């Protein structure tokens, strides 16, 4: 049994410009996540990558109970939690923690760094004294003198480390990290990832990491899922997907990773065409208007999920 098992998850949002939509008799909401399934075992790391706006953070918000799913099942530690009550959540929140995408914006501006890192402990009725705050800051490489600083007095990377310390305060079973290293320099990025890796080895915490950083995905995840317009287009063991991707969007994404060399111009799959919106899905395959390999068939038929051993993809003409 996996620690987390998500099956056919669908999540809807109200539309922007709802009044205008109503006048035109358009539906008043749209599906941001359309049938996503995956599992994560204890001690394992799944990387979630994909187009900006494809629904990655939405999945994270739903997993930790901040957004109700429209349908589908979420099993955590053997228990169905997609319709958990508020009382259940009080307990569940100790076992799942979240690192948010906005480094500074997600930290309350009126609290000092010291109270920020120990806040999760106090919320759950534990003591978060100065010694504990120092221990947590030490864990993420911030000197004790930062205890009395406020978020706006930190650099972006320092704020990010405070977020890591907060997420680790409760010793969670599942850690969801939304862009954990965006805004960190290479050395600190390495430190944060080595830290997560160490904690994972020690505690067996499962990690869902959402990121745009492909180098990070390649080095620290066991499996990866690639999202496009609310759906997985490919999922499988990270090394095998990097070796040979089957879905054209994956191929485009992986080839867009620039080399740290001004003279290197790798062969790149360039995408053109308009970025689609979940409010207005293209017919057939979601990716066909931008796919360099699309054929007439792709505009007509919605491709099914094609399982292939321990991986799978959603393309009728895989690479």
């Amino acid at each position, binding site marked *: 049994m996996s620690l987390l098992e998500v099956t056919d998850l669908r999540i809807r*949002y109200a539309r*922007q*410009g709802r009044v*205008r939509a109503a006048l035109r008799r358009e539906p008043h909401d749209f599906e941001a996540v359309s049938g996503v399934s995956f599992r994560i075992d204890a001690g394992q790391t799944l990387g979630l*990558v994909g*187009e*900006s*706006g494809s629904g990655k*953070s939405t999945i994270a918000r739903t997993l930790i109970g901040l957004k109700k799913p429209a349908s589908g099942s979420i099993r955590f530690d053997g228990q169905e939690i997609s319709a958990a009550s508020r009382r259940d959540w009080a307990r569940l929140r100790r076992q799942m923690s979240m690192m948010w995408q*906005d480094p*500074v*914006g997600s930290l309350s501006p009126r609290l000092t760094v010291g109270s920020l890192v120990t806040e999760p402990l106090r919320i759950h009725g534990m003591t978060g004294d100065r010694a504990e705050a120092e221990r947590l800051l030490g864990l993420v*490489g911030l*000197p004790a*003198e930062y205890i*009395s*600083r406020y978020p*706006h*007095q930190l*650099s*972006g*990377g320092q704020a990010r480390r405070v977020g890591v310390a907060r997420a680790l305060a409760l010793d969670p079973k599942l850690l969801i990290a939304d*862009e954990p290293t*965006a*805004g960190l*320099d*290479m*050395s*600190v*990025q*390495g*430190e944060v990832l*080595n830290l997560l*890796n160490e904690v994972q080895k020690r505690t067996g915490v499962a990690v869902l990491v959402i990121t*745009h950083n492909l*180098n990070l995905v*390649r*080095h620290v995840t066991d499996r990866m899922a690639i999202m496009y317009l609310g759906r997985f287009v490919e999922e499988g063991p*990270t*090394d095998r997907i*990097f070796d040979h991707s089957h879905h054209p969007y994956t191929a*485009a*994404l*992986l080839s*867009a*990773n*620039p*080399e*740290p*060399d*001004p*003279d*290197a111009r790798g062969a*790149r799959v360039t*995408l053109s065409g*308009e*970025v*689609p*919106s979940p409010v*207005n899905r293209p017919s057939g395959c979601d990716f066909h208007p931008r796919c360099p390999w699309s054929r007439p068939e792709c505009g007509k038929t919605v491709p099914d999920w094609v399982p292939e051993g321990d991986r799978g993809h959603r393309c009728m003409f895989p690479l």
Partner: protein
Amino acid sequence: MSTQSTAAPADDTLLAVEGLSVDFETPRGTIHALRDIDLTVPKGKVLGIVGESGCGKSTLAYSLIGLLAENARVASGAIRMGDHDLARLAPSAWRDLRGTRIAMIFQDPMTALNPVTTIGQQMLDIQYRDRIGRNAKRARAIEFLEQVQIPDAASKLAAYPHQLSGGMRQRVCIAMALLTQPDLLIADEPTTALDATLEMQIVALLRDLQRKFGCSVVFVSHHLGTVAELCDDVAVMYAGEVVERGTARALFHDPQHPYTQALLDCDPARIKVATRTLPTIPGTLPDLRQPPAGCAFRARCPRSWGRCERDHPPLYPGAAGQRVRCHLSDPAEDAA
């Protein structure tokens, strides 16, 4: 207003930072966040700024656009742009420059966006100087949202920032900065929230804009691949100082400063075999309340020796035409 132009910048220089030092006053002492920064931004070129988290990149970026925090103080130095010294500009003069000649894209998009106003209203407000009708402004707003690949641009005008994904918010900020067609665009980690294909599209867009309007860009980033792709020149900062600067090619092919070398070695993009333990630079930044007397990098430097503790290294000329703040590049050391 300052117009003492003793050393007027050369013609192809848009902006020259000369000996700039910036302090933050805090209850626990004065933080010397920038010390003696010298840099030039050539006209129509892209200058990249890289360096460790907390080394002062954003502080430098903010000082170029006059948005330093309230507890900040320019301790010395000048920022010359034309006849202006931006380090000592009156607030009224800033209102004319900001948003016309200088624009900025922030590290955290919520810095620039008002959470309780729609995207559309914010994009109209930023065009308040343009003498065109409301509908024309609306059309321009949509056009620029489309340029940064926002789907359904027209309907997004009614959205509030929290209804957009992280990457969309950042693209809205980029569109707003481009709307003003500035001479100098300061971009503080503008692409960290974007996926790789979009990042490449935005980088291409910045380059197009820069070619089309001849504007200069200061591009702060931790993503060395993007810096290599976009920037003409690069400055590497460490603990509030520029420790190496030169052309992108010189820096990436022939880094001279031990910190630059260590930084490049940490880039996971250079590590071809997948590994769970990523390289790091052991140690931490020095306390910026009391910057060390000798070289700021000494405590972490694998090659330091006695002199590094005593003498503060100046910017020596490096092998590939760059400038290097390390005694290893002192021509006198070779002779000795």
